[in-house]
């Protein structure tokens, strides 16, 4: 793990391994990293917004649980983004296969499940209020 973190900060290894590719590939990899980073920032912003703009919910601390879940998910997306960027950069320079990742599928399932649960909660709330 420390090796991976050192690799993020030590671009020498990323600059010396293999051959320098067409800069357009590096820049595309950089933009993909930034798109993931903004995805993480959007999740963090969603968590911060849930904590201060949602009214208190009927279930105890449900608002706080939603906020903390979004915040932790956003932080995980950001950390994973820089790790994936470094591994992709290395693979491009070495001419290897790009690293495969289950992370987008897991994230999509997590966000989809969360949205579904909230739809159920909203419907149950509406029916219960009648």
């Amino acid at each position: 793990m420390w090796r991976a973190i050192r690799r993020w900060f030590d671009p020498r290894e990323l600059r010396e391994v293999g051959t320098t590719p067409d800069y357009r590939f590096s820049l595309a990899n950089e933009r993909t990293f930034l798109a993931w980073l903004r995805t993480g920032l959007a999740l963090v912003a969603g968590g911060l917004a849930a904590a201060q703009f949602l009214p208190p919910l009927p279930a105890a601390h449900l608002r706080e649980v939603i906020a903390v879940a979004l915040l932790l998910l956003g932080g995980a997306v950001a950390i994973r983004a820089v790790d994936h960027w470094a591994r992709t950069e290395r693979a491009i320079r070495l001419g290897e296969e790009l690293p495969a990742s289950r992370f987008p599928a897991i994230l999509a399932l997590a966000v989809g499940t969360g949205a579904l649960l909230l739809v159920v909660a909203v419907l149950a709330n509406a029916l219960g209020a009648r």
Partner: protein
Amino acid sequence: MNTGTRPPADRGLQPERTRLAWRRTALALTVVAVLTVRLAAGRGVPGTVLAAVAVVGWGVLLWIIWGRMTGARRTTPGGGPAFPLTALATAGFALIGVLLVLAGVG
């Protein structure tokens, strides 16, 4: 118009698109920083300390991103400190948010 000396369109577009991507990221960071400060308001001394950390971190990050966008590093392949620092800062904002939420519950 002197089109003869202009480099091929793609050469200019790729760095331009990357610069704009950094700019959008900086904007998203600013939104997160503002939301963090707003959440921290009225949460006592811990809230003030965390808000100060968020504002200082935001300023340092804008400076780092500015360096990546305009400085000598802007086209360096293999990146630089801007990559891990922006990612770790996003995780840091998430942590500050969790602490503020927990401070509000307690």
